[in-house]
């Protein structure tokens, strides 16, 4: 058994080394296919981060009565902060609201003049409530609606509900489209790799027939080709890791500029704790495709 295994490995490595250009081309196709898959993963990570960034921006502004006392407001705030759906509550006083308003519109003198005409601060204090995530938003709105607190000026959240519904729709559709696109790319990648392996074995068809004439069994002929498939997959994975790491290093600064204040670290994502999962799965998939393709391609020439 060990002798057979030794011969399988020997024949496989001999074939890979002595058919240099064919091996190089097969590995290049493998690496390109893996690059596509890895780019899909990058797009998925970036897409997910973008969606999370949008969702994080969603908060509820609860406008309070201008005459509400600080104590009343703090009591309400602590009630809301203790809700399980809430991640954070920020209190903006009337004066802070006015300052922010003036800063926002400092390049619009007509706004400043209008405020001067009014003679008093028209803005009300508010609580800015951040939900834990978008999924609990509706629950949160319903609970706030049920608060029996006289200092809450308005309990009309219809705009929010409509906006959340739209955002959820869009993110769901984007997710579905991304999944469909990913599946198409994966299928194309599968077909490209499968056929490149079949073409490589097609070039060996004469040798396969000769081996049969000399008395080799089908298993003796097929095994080295299947082992070669594993070797190509391993070389492909090593190369893609060597290529992708510097690529991500190049991409990272641009992402950090785009996603200011969000932690999107692709290097950590791909080469940190997930490295075995990501590249292990890719290696397993590449081995599977290569082995299946090799088996069916060689079987075609060992039949009969």
């Amino acid at each position, binding site marked *: 058994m060990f002798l057979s295994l030794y011969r399988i490995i020997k024949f496989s490595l*001999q074939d890979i080394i002595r*058919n240099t250009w064919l091996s190089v081309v097969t590995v290049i196709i493998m690496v390109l296919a893996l690059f596509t898959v890895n780019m899909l993963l990058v797009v998925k990570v970036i897409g997910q981060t973008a969606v999370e960034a949008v969702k994080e921006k969603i908060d509820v502004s609860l406008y309070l009565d201008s005459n509400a006392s600080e104590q009343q407001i703090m009591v309400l705030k602590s009630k809301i902060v203790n809700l399980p759906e809430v991640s954070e509550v920020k209190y903006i006083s009337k004066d802070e609201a006015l300052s922010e308003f003036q800063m926002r519109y400092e390049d619009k003198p007509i706004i400043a003049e209008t405020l001067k005409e009014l003679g008093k601060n028209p803005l009300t204090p508010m609580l800015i409530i951040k939900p834990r995530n978008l999924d609990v938003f509706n629950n949160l709105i319903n609970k706030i609606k049920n608060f029996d607190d006289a200092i809450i000026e308005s309990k009309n959240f219809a705009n929010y509900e409509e906006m959340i519904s739209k955002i959820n729709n869009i993110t769901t559709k984007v997710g579905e489209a991304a999944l469909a696109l990913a599946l198409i790319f994966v299928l194309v990648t599968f077909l490209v790799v499968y056929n490149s392996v079949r073409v490589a074995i097609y070039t060996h068809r004469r040798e396969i027939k000769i*081996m*049969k*004439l*000399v*008395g080799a069994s089908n298993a003796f002929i097929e095994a080295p080709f299947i082992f070669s498939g594993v070797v190509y997959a391993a070389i492909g994975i090593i190369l893609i890791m060597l290529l992708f790491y510097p690529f991500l290093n190049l991409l990272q600064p641009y992402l950090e500029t785009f996603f200011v204040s969000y932690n999107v670290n692709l290097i950590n994502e791909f080469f940190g704790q997930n490295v075995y999962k990501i590249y292990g799965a890719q290696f397993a998939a590449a081995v599977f495709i290569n082995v299946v393709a090799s088996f069916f391609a060689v079987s075609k020439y060992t039949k009969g």
Partner: protein
Amino acid sequence: MIKFENVSKVYNKGSLVLNKIDLHIKPGEFVSIVGQSGTGKTTLIKTLIGEERFDEGRVTVGGWDITNISQREIPFLRRQIGVIFQDFKLLNKKTLFENVAFAMEVCGESHDKIKKIVPHVMKIVGLEAKMNSFPQEVSGGEQQRVAIARALVHRPKILLADEPTGNLDTLNTYEIIDLLLRINRFGTTVALVTHNREVVNRLKRRVITLENGMIISDQEEGKYIL
């Protein structure tokens, strides 16, 4: 050693390539099977190694009835018969040594046995100095000698040669034929398929002549009669 009993074969388009062939080749014989192209000579050889199935009759090789041989058994049949071909059929990415050794490796022979026997067989065919060359680095005659070495290395009782000199010049042709005669002297049954008149007439051995898939002549010290 080889027995054809009433063997017929029809190809798909209704063409009768072997027509009720009755033939017995005894152990140790040297037989030439001659005929023009398309008379069924190669089909006869292919039948003996299980590459072609026949439609009627029975074939026995070394006592083994191969009439209904299964796909799984064919490699074992081929390991017992040495075959050489017109186009040599060497593995181009293996050295001459590795080509010959391959025939032993498929039988599961040990590394030590291969290291001992292959150089010895390469010496018999006169190629011990070129064991590490590749087929494309040697001449046609040398390639055919490697093919003979590969065919002999597991000591088959039967050696089938299908037009082995078809791609060779006259000098190499006679060298190969002399090698086959030497092999036959050691007790191996040799069946030589050829359409080379001079070779057949020079051999003065049994000649079986095929025409239209039938045996039209079978002479002990025969000549090329077509």
